[in-house]
C-alpha cells in the first residue's frame, strides 16, 4: 500500500506513524485558521490606535474595513464545515471530567498522572466550543455593524451594545487563540505536524490520546 493514498483518520502507517487528521479536516482547520487570523489582525487594528498599523494585513485601513466582514463570512462558513466534521467528537465524554480535575498535572507536564483521553481532550473541546459560539455571536453582531446606517435612524441605541458584544467576543477568542497557538507550536511537539500534513508518531498518539490510539489499533 502506498502511503500517498492515505485518507482515513486513524490509519496506521508502516514507519510507526498514524493519521491524526484526514485531508478534509486539515483543509478545514487551515481555512478556519487563515480567515480567523485575518479577521483578528484587521479587527485589532480597529480595536486600538496602537495596533492600527496591523491594517496593512488587509492592504490598508480602508480596504481592511472592506474585507474584514467578507472574510468574516468565510470564517463562519469554514466554522460550519468544521462543525459538520467534528461536532459529534466534541461532545463531552466521561473521561473529560477526570481530565479537568487533573488539569494542574496537564499544565505542569505530569502527563503520567492524567487519565487516558480520546481523540480530543477536554481542553481541545473547550477551545472548539469557545470558537464555535463566539463565531455565531461575531456573525450576528458583525452583520449589524456592517450596515449600521440601516438601523441608525430607528434603533440607534442598539449599535453601541452590538459593538461592545462584538469586541468582547473577539477578545475572548483571542485569549483562547493565544493558548491554542502556544500549545500547537511550542508546548506539544508533534501537534503541528498532525494538523499540517496529518501524520503523528504512534508514541505521540498513545501518549496524548491513549483511548483513541487503542481504538484505532483494534480496527
Amino acid at each position, binding site marked *: 500500500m502506498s502511503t500517498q493514498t492515505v485518507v482515513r483518520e486513524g490509519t496506521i502507517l508502516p514507519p510507526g506513524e498514524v493519521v491524526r487528521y484526514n485531508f478534509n479536516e486539515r483543509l478545514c482547520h487551515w481555512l478556519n485558521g487563515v480567515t480567523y487570523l485575518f479577521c483578528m489582525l484587521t479587527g485589532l*487594528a480597529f480595536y486600538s490606535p496602537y495596533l492600527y498599523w496591523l491594517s496593512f494585513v488587509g492592504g490598508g485601513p480602508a480596504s481592511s474595513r472592506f474585507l474584514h466582514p467578507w472574510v468574516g463570512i468565510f470564517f463562519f462558513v469554514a466554522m460550519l464545515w468544521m462543525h459538520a466534521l467534528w461536532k459529534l467528537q466534541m461532545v463531552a465524554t466521561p473521561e473529560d471530567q477526570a481530565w479537568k480535575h487533573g488539569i494542574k498535572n496537564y499544565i505542569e507536564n505530569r502527563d503520567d498522572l492524567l487519565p487516558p483521553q480520546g481523540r480530543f481532550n477536554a481542553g481541545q473541546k473547550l477551545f472548539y466550543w469557545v470558537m464555535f459560539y463566539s463565531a455565531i455571536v461575531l456573525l450576528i453582531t458583525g452583520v449589524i455593524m456592517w450596515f449600521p446606517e440601516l438601523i441608525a435612524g430607528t434603533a440607534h441605541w442598539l449599535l453601541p451594545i452590538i459593538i461592545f458584544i462584538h469586541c468582547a467576543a473577539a477578545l475572548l477568542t483571542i485569549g483562547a487563540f493565544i493558548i491554542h497557538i502556544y500549545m500547537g507550536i511550542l508546548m506539544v511537539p508533534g501537534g503541528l505536524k498532525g494538523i499540517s500534513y496529518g501524520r503523528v508518531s504512534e508514541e505521540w498518539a498513545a501518549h496524548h490520546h491513549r483511548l483513541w490510539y487503542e481504538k484505532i489499533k483494534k480496527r
Partner: protein
Amino acid sequence: MPNEAMQIKAISAHPGPVPGGNVSRDYDVCKLIDTTTCIGCKACEVACLEWNGYEFRETTFDNTYQTMPDTAWNYWNLIRFNEHENEDGTLNWLMRKDQCMHCADPGCLEACPADGAIVQYANGIVDFNQENCIGCQYCVTGCPFNIPKFNPTTKKVFKCTLCSDRVGAGLEPACIKSCPTGCLHFGSKDDMKDLAQKRAQQLKDHTSYHNAGVYDPETIGGTHVIYVLHDKDHPERYGGLPKDPRIPIMVRLWKHPLKWLGNIGMIAGIAGVLLHYVRFGPKVVDKKEEKKP
C-alpha cells in the same frame, strides 16, 4: 488667522501701557439658531449645498414643510418641521435647522478608530477628514444626534463642517450668510450664549412663551451650535432633539474598561504562555514505554 506670537508685548519709550495689551482673544466659535424666528424658507439648505458643491437632490413630500425625512451624506443641513398641538388645541409650527452640533465632547471622535479621520479644532469645530476615513461608521454609533451620514459609493462618512474652510478664512458659515430673518447668528461662544439668553428673556417677558430657553446641553460639554427654543423643557418636539444627549454608555464602556481589560488580558496571555514554556517546557513523549497499549 491672527498670529498670537506676533502680538506686541512691550514698546520702547512708550508712555503708558501697550495699546491692546492684556486683551485675550476668544477663539471659540458658535452658531446660534433662534427657532422662534425661523420661517422654514430653506435658504440655509440651498446655501449649504452651493458652498459645499453638492447638487440639489430629489425631495420627498410627506404633507409637511420638510424637504426630506433625514439629512444625507450630501445634504448636511435640514429644516425639521413639526406641527405641535398645544394643550389648548392651538397649533405651533416648529422649525429647527438640524445639522452637526459640534459637541465639545464629540461622540464621533470618541468612537472613531481611524487615525486622523476626525479632528476637533481649538475653535470648537469638529471636522471629518475623509481621506483618513475607513467607512466603519463607528462615528454613527457614537453620535447622540445621528448626524454622520455614509456615502455607500465612496465608503466615507460626511457631515456639516461648520464651514471650517470659510471660518478659517475669517468668514461666517454659508447658512448664516443666507438667512433672511436673522434667526441665524455666528460669533464667539460667549457672545452667542449671551445673545441667546437675551432673546429667551425677551420671549419670556413679551410673548406667551414663558418657558423659552437656550439649548446648549451640558451632558456633552456644551455644543458649538446652540438653539433658542419656545419651550426649553421639550426639545424632542423639534424633530427629536434629545433632551440630555450623551455619548452612549456602551461606547464609553467599550473604549475604556473593556479595552483595558482586553489589553491586559492579551499581554498577560502572551506573557503567561511564554513563562509556561520557560518554567515547564514542552511535553516530552517517551519513545519506549508509550507505544504499548
